[in-house]
């Protein structure tokens, strides 16, 4: 089942293509080729800013990019997204050799050859036994050992290492979600010896990987330092002597850090206005990379609260939102931009613009949509409604989009009382107390894998907080997951999308995020991925000293 999941490329749609823009000469397609043709220089330390402090150093248990950005460079994965072309979802070998294997046994057995001669930073050799131990910890953790992505591997029967260079994954059933799960950037390969000798908690505080950089120091709240691993298993890499990940929670501070050259790059994403400011102030000293982002900002109507149990009211909410207009304006000030449905817009399974326009709230004639919304509200007997809107106290993009949404709903006569809460209280309301009419929510995944990502819209999903049951949608999803061909999947996906966003309007998609990474022009080799979790090992990154 060589399927579409590996092998798609970002659709060439104006504005959504990942592009390399040179600050001084914006939009010159040539520049990208020039960059590739350059020969990598060795040396130098890369300073970058990261928005938070990692909760622990253990990738298998954590969920945040605040861990990925400073610590991914210390580790290797079995397979990874291609660092030379992270926009594609072609996976390539990291610790395996001989390319990505085709499954055998009716798609149920995957056999990888593991690279020989690789050593951990402490000098132990790395073998297939270490890979098995790591995946066993991720997929079948002993009781009481946390593993955040265990459920991604519900198709895996067993992991075997018949010899030191072979690793075999036996699946219960063939699944297109297996390879993306395997390539998840948190699946760091730990040493079996470390796990056996020090136990499963050791990696919370300690680092021992096979990655391009060796852990040097973590100064709490301040930075994480890494130094070049001279014995790295990819020939000629890494190029950098080391890196420093500087912790800076405030977005304004991170922007200023790049402005004042205290840091060269930030890997999450800046608002467009900040990009324009940096380009204006620094000219060709700044280079900008942009990409669609595998994160979507949603609003969740609470189906247990009246009148949001009424699909007419939920449709009215969606109809009021001018997505095309919002895209134009919000994309100047917020990290959102792309109009899309339930599927990541860069993926072939995503609806085309023409298909989107058929959905409630995606029409080009916003006045007509709003008239329809008012009629629906009237029909549902809703007058003088004040929405209790739960929002997260983070500016980008939640509060910015929240302010916009309130204004959109005001245009069909709905009042909104916004309750902005700090993250812990926000989640307490969203996940536990359910004391909201409508709440902001988002879905943000790493490896692009629509079949897995769209579970967000299932009432039964653990991360769906709208409190509904919709058997039709559940059945459709089962059908989707088993559909053998791309065309069938695409057809089912459209039905799924129509129920989730239009007929029932269970959740509202506002806009998909848009990743903008302005960085110092001397940073070379790093290529933007559709997720801030991907392509962060930094082994192919180098500094152009002539530009420093």
């Amino acid at each position: 089942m060589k399927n579409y999941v590996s092998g798609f490329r970002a659709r060439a749609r104006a504005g959504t293509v990942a592009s390399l823009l040179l600050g001084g000469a914006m939009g010159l397609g040539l520049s990208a080729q020039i960059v590739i043709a350059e020969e990598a220089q060795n040396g130098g330390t890369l300073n970058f800013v990261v928005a938070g402090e990692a909760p622990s150093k253990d990738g298998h248990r954590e969920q945040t990019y605040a861990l990925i950005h400073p610590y991914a460079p210390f580790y290797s994965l079995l397979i990874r997204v291609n660092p030379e072309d992270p926009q594609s979802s072609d996976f390539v070998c990291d610790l395996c050799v001989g390319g990505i294997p085709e499954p055998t046994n009716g798609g149920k057995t995957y056999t990888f050859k593991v690279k020989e001669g690789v050593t951990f930073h402490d000098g132990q050799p790395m073998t297939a036994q270490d890979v098995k131990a790591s995946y066993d910890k991720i997929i079948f953790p002993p009781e009481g050992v946390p593993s955040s992505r265990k459920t991604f591997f519900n198709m895996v029967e067993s992991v075997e290492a018949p010899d030191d260079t072979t690793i075999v994954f036996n699946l219960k059933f063939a699944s297109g979600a297996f390879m993306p799960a395997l390539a998840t950037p948190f699946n760091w390969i730990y040493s079996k010896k470390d796990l056996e000798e020090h136990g499963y908690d050791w990696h919370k505080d300690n680092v021992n990987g096979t990655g391009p950089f060796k852990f040097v120091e973590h100064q709490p709240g301040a930075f994480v330092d890494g130094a070049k691993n001279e014995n790295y298993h990819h020939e000629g890499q890494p190029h950098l002597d080391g890196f420093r990940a500087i912790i800076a929670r405030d977005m304004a501070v991170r922007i200023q850090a790049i402005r004042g050259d205290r840091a060269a790059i930030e890997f999450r994403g800046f608002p467009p206005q900040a990009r324009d400011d940096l380009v204006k102030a620094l000219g060709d000293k700044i280079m900008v990379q942009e990409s669609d982002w595998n994160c979507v900002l949603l609003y969740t109507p609470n189906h247990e609260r009246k009148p949001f149990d009424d699909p007419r009211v939920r449709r009215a909410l969606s109809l009021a939102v001018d997505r095309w207009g919002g895209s134009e304006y919000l994309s100047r000030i917020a990290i959102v931009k792309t109009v899309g449905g339930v599927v990541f817009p860069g993926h072939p399974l995503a609806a085309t613009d023409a298909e989107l326009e058929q959905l409630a709230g995606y029409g080009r004639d916003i006045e007509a949509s709003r008239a329809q919304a008012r009629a629906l509200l009237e029909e549902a007997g809703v007058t003088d409604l004040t929405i209790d809107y739960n929002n997260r106290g983070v500016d980008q993009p939640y509060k910015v989009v929240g302010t916009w949404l309130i204004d959109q709903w005001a245009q069909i006569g709905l009042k909104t009382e916004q309750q902005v809460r700090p993250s812990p209280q926000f989640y307490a309301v969203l996940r536990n107390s359910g004391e909201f009419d409508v709440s902001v929510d988002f879905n943000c995944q790493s490896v692009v894998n629509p079949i897995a990502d769209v579970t967000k819209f299932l009432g039964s999903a653990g991360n769906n907080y709208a409190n509904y049951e919709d058997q039709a949608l559940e059945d459709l999803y089962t059908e989707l997951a088993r559909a053998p061909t791309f065309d069938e999947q695409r057809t089912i996906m459209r039905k799924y999308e129509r129920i989730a966003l239009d007929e029932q309007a269970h959740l509202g998609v506002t806009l998909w995020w848009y990743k903008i990474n302005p960085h110092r022009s001397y940073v070379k080799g790093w290529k933007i991925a559709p997720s801030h979790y991907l392509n962060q090992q930094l082994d192919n990154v180098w500094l152009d000293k002539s530009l420093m």
Partner: protein
Amino acid sequence: MYQYVLKRLLLMIPTLIGAALLVFFLLRMLPGDVCEVRLAGTGLYVSQEEIDLCRADLGLDDSLHEQFVDFVGGYFTGDLGRSMWTGQPVVHEIQVRFKLSMQLAIMATLVAVIIALPLGILSAVKQDTWIDYGVRAFSIAGIAMPSFWLGIMIILGLLIVTQAWFGSGWMPPINYVSPFEDPIGNLAQLIWPAVATGYRYSAVATRMTRSAMLEVLREDYVRTARAKGLIERVVINRHALKNAMLPVVTIIAIEFAFLMGGLVVTEQVFNLNGIGKLFVDSVGNQDFALTQHLVMLVVVIFLLTNLVVDVLYAWLDPRIRYS
């Protein structure tokens, strides 16, 4: 004297117990917990099972009195536990940041003194002239300006000025270096927040200097000194200033006690890895373990500074010793 100190120390005990109870229950009243922020806060899928595991691991499911005993017991066993966010020992988390905040507090106090003393004296000597009014307006403006805003304006100013003069924008370093390793780098980072905070704290000290000077200038021995024909500068420096210092020193010390809390916003603006930023971060992460010890640290610093000030005062001015 010893009795006085002892009594003051004993009076601190109920205050500390009260503060511990207050912070403990205030934090537990907050909805939400650290595990949800940690595992669900990034938009990735998370199962309830993982959140339950995390809660059990951090002891959040323990009964309230067990948690309270863990918290307060730490002060007797010397084990303050670990941060619920990073898993690092609380003592270690606080230690690395304390140096920076302490240095910043001292620098800010120095800035405050450098501004306050000359301006306060000038203001007193030129009482009720436009110079006096100007000084007072300047110092009140210091209290009136939100220090985070002043910080933002300083950063903006630096960027604009350096861009205009040197062709490339300069901003203060965002990594702390010890003043013993790299004094210039250290100063380049900390001087700006010290000015932003110090200016604010100079206001009260300026006012105190002014009124203390006014009082002293009217005393007999100053009149005598003047009558002797000493030049004004000598009168002020040698006679008046020395005697006006006591209340000024007191007010500066009291302000210092407030500084630890006052640095919260400044550290945020300049991305300084100090106690104040740790505070905001740990509150934002719902990291109870770290937050409650930080609160206690701030309370203890406050109480001790006040005690030292009072004792010094009593020692210097015997009239109040027994009151």
